């Protein structure tokens, strides 16, 4: 398998993007957007994580198998969090009063 060599320029660009996104995260924290604050913070964090995985961890130019492994890892994290939340988010829907009688 031939190794793809990422240029220093790309690394610097990604580093800069990460720094800019960090500044935006801090800036957004000072704005009062209600629930949008969380969404913005998580959105930026996910974008940054993707940049690190794709470029710094070389996944973008790796084999399909490596990509499948990475996606599977996140899918399993989604299973863990998603199905656990299926419990926590629905606990209040039936009150204990009505089930016990």
């Amino acid at each position: 398998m031939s190794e793809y060599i990422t240029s220093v320029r790309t690394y610097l660009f990604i580093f800069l993007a990460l720094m800019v996104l960090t500044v935006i995260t801090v800036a957004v924290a000072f704005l009062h957007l209600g629930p949008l604050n969380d969404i913005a913070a998580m959105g930026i964090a996910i974008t940054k994580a993707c940049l690190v995985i794709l470029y710094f961890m070389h996944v973008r130019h790796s084999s399909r198998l490596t990509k499948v492994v990475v996606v599977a890892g996140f899918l399993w994290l989604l299973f863990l969090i998603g199905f656990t939340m299926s419990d926590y988010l629905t606990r209040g829907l039936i009150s204990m009063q009505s089930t016990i009688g």
Partner: protein
Amino acid sequence: MSDTVTTPARRRNYLNADYGIKSWLLTQDHKRIAILYLVSITFFFVLGGVMAALIRVELATPLGDMVEPDTYNRLFTAHGVLMVFLFLIPSIPAVLGNFLIPLMIGAKDLAFPKLNLGSWYVYNLGAVLMVVALLRGGTDTGWTFYTPYSSTFADSEVILTALGAFVVGFSSIMTGLNFIVTIHRMRAPGLTWFRLPLFVWAHYGTSLIQILGTPVVAIAILLVAAERLLHIGIFDPALGGDPVLFQHLFWFYSHPAVYIMILPSMGVISELITAFSRKRIFGYKFVAFSSLAIAVLGFLVWGHHLFVSSQSIYAGLIFSVLSMLVAVPSAVKTFNWTATLYQGSISWQTPMIYALGFIGLFVIGGLTGTMLATLGIDMHVHDTYFVVAHFHYIMVGGAIMAYLGGLHFWWPKITGRMYSVFWSRISAGLIFFGFNLTFFPQFLLGYMGMPRRYHAYPEEFQILNVLSSAGATILGVGYLLPLIYFTWSMRYGERASDNPWGAYGLEWETSSPPPTFNFDEPPVVTTEAYDYLAMRDKRVA
């Protein structure tokens, strides 16, 4: 055991290639590492078995007259911890998988031989921690370490035992990683994915679970330690935590861990059924993909352990439906095995007796599993002996039957010796009978309402408990016999030929025992898996 004594007695093989303790403790040969694992897990199987024996002696009478309640708690915890973490999880993968995967795919060794040896040392390190915990009085939480009892109240060696499980988990990850890379990268020329033995497919599925699930239980254990030692509020409501969160994290791994035990067993059964039916397996691709389906679906069902622990009813419904779905790939396998038997040329060798026993017991274990996945029934029998019986039908009736079946099948390859046919058949019969006598009464006890984890019970339950204890005695004798005749065979057993069963597969094409690098000539594969028809034609020609 038909044709024996065909190989020269003093041929170089992995057993006589080198001598001395050092040659074993520093070996990188997957076959020798498999033997090291075999010795370790057999020791812990015996230790775990002693705990089970003590439990059954206590339960022979309704009164708690042999041990104190607290001691009883420590006994069943030790039994569970030793059997699950130190025996069942490594049993087939680390012994048979380790020995056979490189042989079956025509490779010289696993992809990472040093990592393989490292995994055995890590396993033993974890095992030592658990044994030290046992010697210091043991743990009383049950093998599930449920919070808040384990994190806040238990006054026993919780941290040391949990740390042992944490460390052993890494050896499991190492083995899984090694298998995945080996299966991807080291197959012989011509050995495409759909020519692989189903044993290899099953281990691929198992390895996925080991890698994706084990880190989560490691995290859960660390969080318990963090709460116990540093009082960080994660599971304790008084500190702002939620005890049920532990159950989610724990079962996210520990339910798939059941599939770590049963998937390799299914792989073994596929090999045994084809070998002793002299037929290509019915529906190869369905059996292969059902291993992956079980590995994936197995991750989505953990909530069925939480039906009565304040989990929301909606989550309960989702987990109930998903749990039922696992029955589909399991049934695919079972039906395909029975379809393979149809019109097969069946021979009643000892490994086949184990394989047929497995199918019967696994069906009972699996069907009672779907009963337990039904919310309404589980409310009634949760934490009763019904559950105990169910999972023993899977873990003992399934996993151990297959492990022993596999050991009897590949023993001539592993050691180059045959064992006593007579005694092996007696022991297979004793195990099947003893197992059913031990655990079938427990279904009835559970359905009648006898809760698990108590050292005393009302008198009306005694007759079934006595039957169960009697069965355990027979089961114990059944397990003791192979220990004796296998040990005996290593020195006095008849020499085995390269392929004593006339079975199909690369592992049977090399000598018994195989040379250090498995094959004198690197094999090239030109035929499909289990092509018994071509094999017969070749023999006739």
